[in-house]
C-alpha cells in the first residue's frame, strides 16, 4: 500500500462507466432458410451458438455433472453482435429451429426492437407459422427474401399475396451471406420500427393456410 502518496486516494471505488444498453434484433424464418448464415454475415464476431437445455423435470445446479437424463433436449440459438458505439451494442439472435420450443421464442423476442423473417421462395410454406407468430406479437418485422444464388424469381407483390401479407409490411431482397446485404436488411428493420412506433396494435392478417 502506497502510504507515501501526498493525496489520499479513494482506492477501488466501484467503476462506474455508465450503463451499457443492449438492443436486439431477432432473425427468424423456416428451417434451413439461412438464419445462421445471416447472423454470421451481419455480426462482427463469428456466429456463436448458445444452448439451452430443457427437460421435463428440475435438477439442481450442483448435479450438472453427467446426470443429464433421457428426457433432456438441447435447443440451440445463434447469436451475433454489432458494437454500435460505446455503451450501445446490438445483438442478433437466430430463433431456434425446432418449432416445439415456441415458448423459448417468447423469451427471445421480448424486448427486441425488431425482427427479420427470412423466406426462401422455394419453400414459402415453411415461413407461414413464423409469420403467424410474429404477427401476434408487437414486434416490428420485415420479410427478407433470401435469394439463394442471387435468384429472385418472384415479384414482391406475388410473394405478398402468397404469404397473405399486409400491403404495408416491408419486404426486402437479401443475400444472407453478404455483410452489406445483411446490414441493409437490419437497417430496413430499424426504419420500419421507427415508422411503426405509433401503431402498437398488431397488423391484422388475412387467413393463411399452411
Amino acid at each position, binding site marked *: *500500500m502506497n*502510504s507515501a502518496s501526498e493525496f*489520499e486516494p*479513494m*482506492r*477501488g471505488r*466501484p467503476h462506474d462507466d455508465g450503463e*451499457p*444498453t*443492449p*438492443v*436486439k434484433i431477432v432473425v427468424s424464418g423456416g428451417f434451413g432458410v439461412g438464419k445462421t448464415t445471416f447472423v454470421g454475415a451481419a455480426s462482427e464476431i463469428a456466429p*456463436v451458438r*448458445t*444452448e*439451452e*437445455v*430443457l*427437460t*421435463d*423435470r*428440475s*435438477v*439442481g*445446479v450442483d448435479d*450438472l455433472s453427467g446426470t443429464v437424463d433421457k428426457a433432456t433436449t438441447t435447443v440451440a*440459438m445463434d*447469436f451475433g453482435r454489432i458494437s*454500435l*458505439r460505446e455503451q*450501445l*451494442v*446490438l*445483438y442478433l*439472435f437466430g430463433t431456434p429451429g425446432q*418449432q*416445439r420450443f*415456441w*415458448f423459448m*421464442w*417468447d*423469451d427471445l423476442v*421480448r*424486448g427486441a*426492437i425488431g425482427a427479420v423473417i427470412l423466406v426462401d421462395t422455394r419453400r414459402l410454406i415453411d415461413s*407461414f*407459422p*413464423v409469420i*403467424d*407468430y410474429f404477427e*401476434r406479437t408487437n414486434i416490428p418485422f420485415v420479410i427478407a427474401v433470401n435469394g439463394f444464388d442471387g435468384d429472385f424469381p418472384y415479384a414482391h407483390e406475388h410473394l405478398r399475396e402468397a404469404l397473405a401479407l399486409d400491403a404495408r409490411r416491408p419486404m426486402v431482397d437479401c443475400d444472407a451471406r453478404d455483410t*452489406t446485404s445483411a*446490414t*441493409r436488411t*437490419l*437497417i430496413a428493420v*430499424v426504419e420500419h*420500427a*421507427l415508422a411503426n*412506433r405509433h401503431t402498437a396494435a398488431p397488423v391484422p392478417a388475412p387467413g393463411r393456410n399452411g
Partner: protein
Amino acid sequence: MTPGEPSSNRASPLVRPYVLTGGRTADEVVMPPETLVRATGRSPAASFSAPSAAALSALREGISGPVFEPGDEGFAVEQAGSFGAPAHRPLAVVGARTSDDVRSAVEFAAEHGLPVAVQSTGHGNLSNTDGALLISTRRMRRLEIDRRQRSVKVAAGVIWRDVIDEAAPYRLAPVCGSAPSVGVIGYTLGGGLSPLGRTYGFSADYVRKIEVVTADGYRRLVDGDHEPDLFWAMRGGKGNFGVVTAMEFGLVDEPELYGGGLYYDGKDAEAVLRSYVRWAPLLPATMTTSIALLGSTAGLQLPGASAACPLVHLRIAHIGTVEQGSALLTPMRSVATPLLDTVAQRPFTSIAEVHEDPTTPIAADKRGGVLTELTDDTVSALLTTMNTSAKPVLFVELRQLGGAFHRYGSDIGSVGHRDAAYSVYVVSAPIDAGSSVSGSTRLLEAIAPWAAGGVPVNFLGSANAPADVARAWDADTHHRLIGIKQAWDPDNMFRFGYPLIAPPRQVSPEAAELLRRCQEATSVAELAASLGLPLGVVRVLLADLVEAGMVNTYRFDPERAADTQLLGEVLDELRKRV
C-alpha cells in the same frame, strides 16, 4: 402443438432444469440472453493464503503493541476482551497501542486481503472472525478533556467509566450509555441510546470529529467539513467504514441527577406495566425511563422473601430537582410496593445505578426492535409470552424514546428510527438444536402488532446478517449508507459487527470463471457460449453473483423498444456500416 401462438406452450412440461441453491429455478431469473453483465469489482471470497510467518513477524516489528497468534500466551485474553466475548478465532490479534499501530495493521490486512475486526471491550459479542485480523484497541485509553470547548477527545479503547470520571472534576458529563464498562466508540458508532436520551438525544449527536483509518490504509480526520458523507455515515452506521482511532465529542454540564431503579414483585407485574403504559407518555423530556422484565432473580440482592418472576425493573433518570423528580414518580411508587427502590439524588458518576446492567456476559440469543406504541394489549402479549414460553425469556427491556431522541436536523448523523416510541431488547436462551426459533424471536413476534419493523443498530444483538442490519434504518438511509460503504470499503474489509453488506461469498469455479469473463460488459449469451454452459445454468450462476453484489446486469427495458431517439441512434450507426 399449434405453431404461431405466442405463449401457447407455456404449459409445456419442458422446463429449464436448473434450480438455484435457494430453490429458485432458471425460469424465474429474468435475464434475456442479450442482458449485459459486468463485474462490480467486488471479489469473491479469496481463498487467501494466510500471511507467511515472515510477513507476520514483519507485522510484529512494525507494531508498538503486542501481536498474538492462536496458541500464543495472551491470545485468549485479548480475544475475549474485558467483557468476555465468546471464543472466536481470528488469524491474529494486534494489540494496538497507538493510532499508527492501527494504521499499520490495516495496511497489512489490505496487502494480504484480510478482513479486519475491531474490539475494545467485547460487549459487542464479536463472533466468527475466522481468518480476520483482529485489532484490539483496549490499550488505547487516552483521553483529553477540553474544558473551554466542553468536549473530550477519546482514543479507541476508552470506556464510559473513563470519561465519566475524568469529566466529573470539571462538572461536565458525557451523554453516555447505561453501562460504564461499555466502549465509547463501539457504542457511539451505533448511535448510542443513552439513559439520559429523552433529555439530551442520541450520544452520536454530540460527535464533533472522528479520526479513522479507512480500508485504503489512510488515517483521516472527518467532520462536517471533511468527508461529510463519511462523517454522517459513521454517526449511526456502526463499524462499517473503518477503524476509529479517536473521537471528539461534546459534553454537557453535569446533570442534577435524580435516578435509580424500582424493583417490583412479579405478582404486581401486570398492574405495574399497565400503569407504566399510561404514565410514561405523559412524562416531560427531563425524565428518561425504561422498564425491564427479568426472567430470573439470580444475581440480584433483593430484600424480603422469594419474589415471583418476571420481576419488573423500572429505571429512572430525571434531570432536575428531587422535588420535580419525585413528584413525577409518585404514581409508579404507589401502584404497588416496590421490593427495592434506589431512586434518589445521586452524583452523575453513579449513573450505572439507573440500569444496573449485568457486568458479565451470558451466552444467549439477543434481539431487538422498536415499537410505535405500548398498550395494555402489548403488556398482555409480553406477559403471556414470558409466562408460557417453553424456552424462558431471560430479559425484556423497553426503553422509552421521544423527547430529544426525536431531534432531527441536517447536522445529525445516520441514526435510524428516531421517531419510534420505545425500543425493545430481548434476551433468551440460545436456540437449541431441536428448534429453529428462540424465545426472543417468539416474544418479538408476539408484540409485532405494535412494532415498527425496525431496530436500533446497538440492539441488533444476535441478528448480524446484512438483511437484519438493514432494519436499523429506513430504506433511504440504508441505501445511502450502502453507497458510502461501497465507496469507502468496496472489498468489505470491515465486515464484522453488523455489516451493511454481505461478506464475499465463496463461488463455484464456474462462477469464478464467469466473473473473470465479464470484467468488461458482456452478454449472457456470449458468456454461456464461451463457457460452453447452457443459458439456464449461466442465468442461475449470475443471479447468485448479482445477489452477492459481484456483478451488475444491464437489461434492456422493453419500453425503450419504441424509443425514437434510441432507434435513431441504432439506425445512424448501422447506416455508417454500409
